[in-house]
């Protein structure tokens, strides 16, 4: 007999009837559990929000303290009773504060993983594997062509380019929350000790990381710092090709994203130095994770679902795409 998934798809988003709550809903709802602070998952305007301390803090930084009527901190591993189900949050390894949501009811366990990765990340807690009957996975990079390189090797590429073009500023596009801070931490791990310069849009969140005790070294504002020849400047992806970028010395344009794996994508956005660094699971990590949970049912929320569904149906798992729209912004190439 099929175990209960506890989940239904409603226009507002993924809904758990037994607990009467939504997960990462797209529209305002009475009760929302939020997996992490990326804007496509964490939206303002819900009545009550339950999430990790860091996710709530990031939401407050983004939307102001009034982002919801009521916010409740849930610690990793803490067990809540909501309606007829038990709910707990577990690290997803995606960004600071990111969580998988485990829903338990009589005889069945469902994990909604949100966005996740398995690669070590110095800026957040590592992914925790939870056995379950139903696993809900993203598929942002759900094609076997997506195999993220080793992040340290990609950082080495950036440093090699700095050595070859010491008179050019290196402009690296990175998502403002998570990716930018991880890049700085990776640079520091590689022993890069020059200041890293930030576009204004990255300051608030980076400050938050520093306040949370994550060591990022010497960080400065790019504004007013001159042409920054030979320096690394981090900015939001769209700023790389903006007028903003023209004040720098003959910039080398770079972008750190899993999308950079496909060359045509990088060239299409005019990126000279693509860095394949992603905060999402790549194909191998998606497949391994799904297998390791031991699930008998797989629901694929967003991304390239077809290949993953095909693959797991072949392995005898009841796999189904949910075709959820409105997610995936955090790794999406620039909007055109």
């Amino acid at each position, binding site marked *: 007999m099929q175990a209960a998934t506890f989940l239904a798809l409603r226009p507002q988003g993924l809904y758990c009837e037994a607990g009467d709550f939504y997960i990462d809903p797209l529209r305002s709802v009475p009760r929302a559990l939020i997996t992490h602070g990326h804007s496509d998952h964490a939206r303002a305007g819900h009545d009550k929000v339950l999430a990790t301390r860091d996710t709530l803090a990031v939401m407050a930084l983004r939307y102001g303290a009034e982002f919801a009527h009521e916010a409740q901190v849930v610690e990793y591993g803490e067990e809540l009773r909501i309606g007829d189900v038990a709910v707990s949050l577990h690290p997803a390894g995606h960004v600071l504060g990111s969580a998988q949501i485990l829903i338990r009811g009589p005889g069945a366990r469902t994990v909604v993983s949100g966005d996740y990765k398995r690669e070590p990340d110095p800026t957040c807690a590592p992914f925790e594997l939870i056995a379950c009957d139903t696993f809900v996975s993203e598929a942002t990079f759900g*094609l*076997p*062509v*997506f*195999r993220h*390189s080793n992040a340290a090797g990609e950082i080495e590429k950036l440093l090699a380019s700095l050595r*070859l*073009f010491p008179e050019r500023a290196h402009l690296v596009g990175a998502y403002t929350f998570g990716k930018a801070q991880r890049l700085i931490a990776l640079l520091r791990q590689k022993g890069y000790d020059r200041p890293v310069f930030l576009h204004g849009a990255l300051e608030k969140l980076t400050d938050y990381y520093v306040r949370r005790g994550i060591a990022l070294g010497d960080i400065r504002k790019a504004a007013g710092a001159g042409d920054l020849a030979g320096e690394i400047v981090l900015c939001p992806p769209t700023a790389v090709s903006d007028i903003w970028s023209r004040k720098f010395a003959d910039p*080398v344009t770079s972008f750190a994203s899993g999308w950079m*794996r*496909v*060359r*045509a*994508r*990088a*060239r*299409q956005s*005019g*990126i*000279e*130095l*693509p860095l394949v660094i992603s905060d999402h699971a790549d194909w*191998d990590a998606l497949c391994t994770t799904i297998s390791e949970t031991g699930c008998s049912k797989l629901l694929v929320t967003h991304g*390239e679902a*077809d*290949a993953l569904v*095909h*693959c797991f149906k*072949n392995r005898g798992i009841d796999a189904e795409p949910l075709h959820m729209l409105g997610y995936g912004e955090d790794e999406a190439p620039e909007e*055109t």
Partner: protein
Amino acid sequence: MNRFASLLDRLQHEPSRLAKLRLMTDYFRTTADPDRGYGLAALTGALSFKYAKPGLVKALIVSRIDPVLFELSYDYVGDLSETVALLWPVEASARGADHPASLTEVVRRLAESGKIDLPRVLAELLDGLDETGRWALLKLITGAMRIGASARLAKQALADLGGKSANDIEDIWHGLKPPYLDLFAWLEGREPRPVTNDPAPFSPAMLAHAITEEELAELNPHDFRAEWKWDGIRVQAAVGERRSGDKIIRLFSRTGEDISGAFPDLVAMFAELPYRAFSLDGELLIRRDGVVQSFGVLQQRLNRKKVSASLLAEYPAHIRAYDLLSFEGEDLRALPFVERRGRLETFVARAGAARLDLSPQIDFATWDRLAAARRDPASAGAGADATAVEGVMLKRAESIYVPGRPKGLWYKWKRDPFTIDAVLMYAQRGHGKRSSFYSDFTFGLWQGQTERDELVPVGKAYFGFTDEELRRLDRYVRTNTSERYGPVREVAHGKDEGLVLEIAFDGVNRSGRHKSGVAMRFPRINRIRWDKPSREADRLETLEALLKEDERMS
């Protein structure tokens, strides 16, 4: 291989010429012999080994991964080499990771492998490389290496390495062979300049810039000589003697490719000239009964693989000479054009060969006179040969012969293109940089009775638009697809729907391969007529009329 692969990878993302030069020079400086020599050969297109067909590459990958996953991936990525490089099973490739094959090894193994063992050899090489290495190898072996760096740029990078000029390199280039140990030794000051003793070398060609009427007004007509711009193929004939006394006769394309094999009639003619050594530039044309034929006729000879006696009789090749670069051991390239022209005239006159004549000069004193000649070549001296004229060439009287495309010396002033309004019918994804865009467009014209008009495809265009226009076209194709056939999408077209493209082209030929019976020459998208209803696009008869006019004249 990995070092070369990362150079390629970096080059194809790099738009700046200076940065490309720096990347290449850095590669040549930091890579050891003989690897860098093979890298240079790959960059300049001088590598030779058996190429693998895309089918072979596909077969390799679907025997390793689920074909459904391959198709989904290929559809997403759009480029075969890249899809396969990304999909290649990593467990296997980890085996060779400690000792990745060097480029030299890769070139050697590919050169040694026969047709039968090529799949096995290729698979073993792929196993031993990382993703970038696999991508570069597949690009190399499928002959699809387009990295936006020309051979000329690679030679400039070499020149930068040794503090020389690119022309210094060009001068000896055709006598050198991979892995170019002597060349690098010279550039690094360890050995003297390599001596090339090829008796019939290719001399890098001097090319012209396109010019417009407005730009012309800035120049003084008295400084220039004009000739017809012939619509054939530009060639260079090089003749010399080996020490043994054997005569070497070579016919090169504009880029230095040896095409002698396809033109035994011309080789025989050059062999009989009363000269020991020379090299000349000219236009290869088909001439029947004293009249030069249009490009369409020449193309029928070029299309045949086998050079049969009947082909030679039906399509007699001819050289219309326009420059003499060397004669009996004397290099004439440093002489002014007018002097070389004088020498050429004597050369052709004394040669007395029916298949060789002189490209005549156009008499003009003002730009207006030249413009009139360009409009109507037939009455300005070209006579019946006018069908093979595609504009005029202007050469500065004092210009010495400079390889490459030097500024201010030679100009081409092409005849104005024809234009028609056609309807977009099909689109296909492009290659290389454009592989994730629909960028190859098949367009059609109206045909039939007004009651039952239908669009018939007449040609394909894949350039002429800006990047921004390409993005808009791509979006248009994706949102107006009516049918999908593999990589091709049918785009909705009819009386009341469809996109009109203004197509510019240089001429028309009769064609058995096209359903319409007409083939356009060099079609490109001149304008996208977002505003124009498809029912108002042109009819096939417009093209047919041009064809008849062309045939009447020849």
